[in-house]
């Protein structure tokens, strides 16, 4: 009898304990949760509402209108979206191509050297964004350092017009977002067991083949994480495109910002464009997640 009751007593005690723990968790997480609900989630509700209203030069009119969405579906804003996606894509690919060898080099160097090299990557990353962009303006301007040097070396006759082109935007984007690719890649490559690579080569695989069959598949998670960290901010970038880009080809971040900030304002349009961007990012992330899951399953299948 006693033995029989013991577990029920214990479980009700445990239940109490768990309830107490959960209450404690609610209290501890409440400030952050409420903060994010009020200042992260709720504002999106307002963006949704505003996207169905009527613009006013300085403010907004509380009259329902589908005009913003009509213009988006009409393709009026296709170009800024396209050039933003194209630039984010190019930037991501360039960051993989440049970042991978760098991350690999750091991961494979001696432990003492490693932390110094990492700090060297982190310093520009911690330097103020606007200053890094500004330094490129000095470098690339038609009377800037690059042109000055090339001209005094008589390598070119007239200054290269790189500032205010897509090339400048691309260069600066790679420059700004490269550390976001290198750091996750490094942390993945560092954990790779390189005896696997040696084993593959002992078994007769060439260096290239061993890399593509062993190292690269093992670093896919890093490439994946890095790509998301680069692609998404590059997609919504405003400051880079504004400071070194061409005003004739506006990126989506600029279009949205102008509609909010510049007069005549068009907040419904800015809202609808923001939601479109959000929707596209969500689709993209969902697709990436799906691919990642499938890749994981396939690898598990292979190893079985």
């Amino acid at each position: 009898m006693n033995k029989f009751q013991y577990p029920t007593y214990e479980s009700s005690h445990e239940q109490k304990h768990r309830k107490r723990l959960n209450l404690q968790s609610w209290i501890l997480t409440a400030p952050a949760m409420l903060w994010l609900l009020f200042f992260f989630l709720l504002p999106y509700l307002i963006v949704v509402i505003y996207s169905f209203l009527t613009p006013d030069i300085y403010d907004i009119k509380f009259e329902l209108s589908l005009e913003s969405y009509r213009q988006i579906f009409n393709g009026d804003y296709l170009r800024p979206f396209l050039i933003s996606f194209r630039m984010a894509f190019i930037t991501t690919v360039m960051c993989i191509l440049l970042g991978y060898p760098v991350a690999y080099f750091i991961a494979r160097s001696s432990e003492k050297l490693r932390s110094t090299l990492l700090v060297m990557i982190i310093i520009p990353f911690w330097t103020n964004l606007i200053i890094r962009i500004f330094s490129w303006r000095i470098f690339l301007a038609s009377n800037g350092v690059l042109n000055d040097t090339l001209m005094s070396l008589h390598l070119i006759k007239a200054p290269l017009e790189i500032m205010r082109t897509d090339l400048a935007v691309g260069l600066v984007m790679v420059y700004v977002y490269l550390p976001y690719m290198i750091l996750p890649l490094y942390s993945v490559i560092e954990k790779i067991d390189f005896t696997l690579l040696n084993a593959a080569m002992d078994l007769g695989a060439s260096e290239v083949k061993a890399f593509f069959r062993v190292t690269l598949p093992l670093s896919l998670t890093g490439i994946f994480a890095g790509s998301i960290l680069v692609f998404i901010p590059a997609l919504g970038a405003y400051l880079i495109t504004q400071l070194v880009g061409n005003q004739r080809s506006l990126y989506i971040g600029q279009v949205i910002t102008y509609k909010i900030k510049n007069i005549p304002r068009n907040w419904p349009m800015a809202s609808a464009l923001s939601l479109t961007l959000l929707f596209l990012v969500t689709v993209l992330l969902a697709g990436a997640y799906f691919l990642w899951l499938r890749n994981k399953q396939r690898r598990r299948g292979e190893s079985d």
Partner: protein
Amino acid sequence: MKLHKGINLSIFTLVMIFLYIPILILIIFSFNDAKIIVGWKGFTTKYYVQLFQNDNILQAFKNTMMIAGLSTLISTILGILAALGLENKNFPGRKGLMALIYTPLVIPDILMGVSLALLFNFTQVNTGMFTVLIAHITFCVSYTIIVIQSRLEGFDNSLVEAAMDLGAKPATIFWKVKFPLMMPGIISAALLAFTLSIDDFIITFFTSGRGFDTLPIYVEGTIRRGTITTINALSTLMIGGTIFLVVVTKRIRKSLFSL
């Protein structure tokens, strides 16, 4: 093995040049005695002097530090509390909160700027220091929670259990054992929040009114107006500050926590 090592080394060197050349040029030209960027016109420190005589810059610097300090403090406290609450794996609100924490990190930050700008318009709040502070806490808090929480997860609970076995009160266990163990995570989180706050342009741009400039906002305005002579000097000081912060952090972590 030799071949790809050589290739990696050369790409590494090129990337390092790529990462540092613009910064070096900026530093060198902050001492250049010329109104515009062209050519070297001799060494001067006059732009540094001008910098400290410019009230707008000093005010922007004060604003930046105040916002960064306050948003770091508040977001770190929110982060500590939330991370402790999330330790309980059976917590029913866990999944929802995790989604709420991670979502801001995977959407472009311009969207947070837009949504907060519209929130403050809708609620008719005057934009200024207060709204910028709210915005900065909002984008910092996800990071502080994640950093502190990831430290808690890799946490060796044996010390806490030992203290419990020895009969220490819960409050004593927390302040004498757990909190000191959380400290490295808390410091990392605070530093990250501080840098993110100082660095932010776009969200501040959307949430600050006229008359409340942080340094990035001031710098952008100055570049737009074309009066950039002191910006080189200002940038150099800020780069110096960054390097100082990175090195000091490393030192502190090494000596205090032997990490």
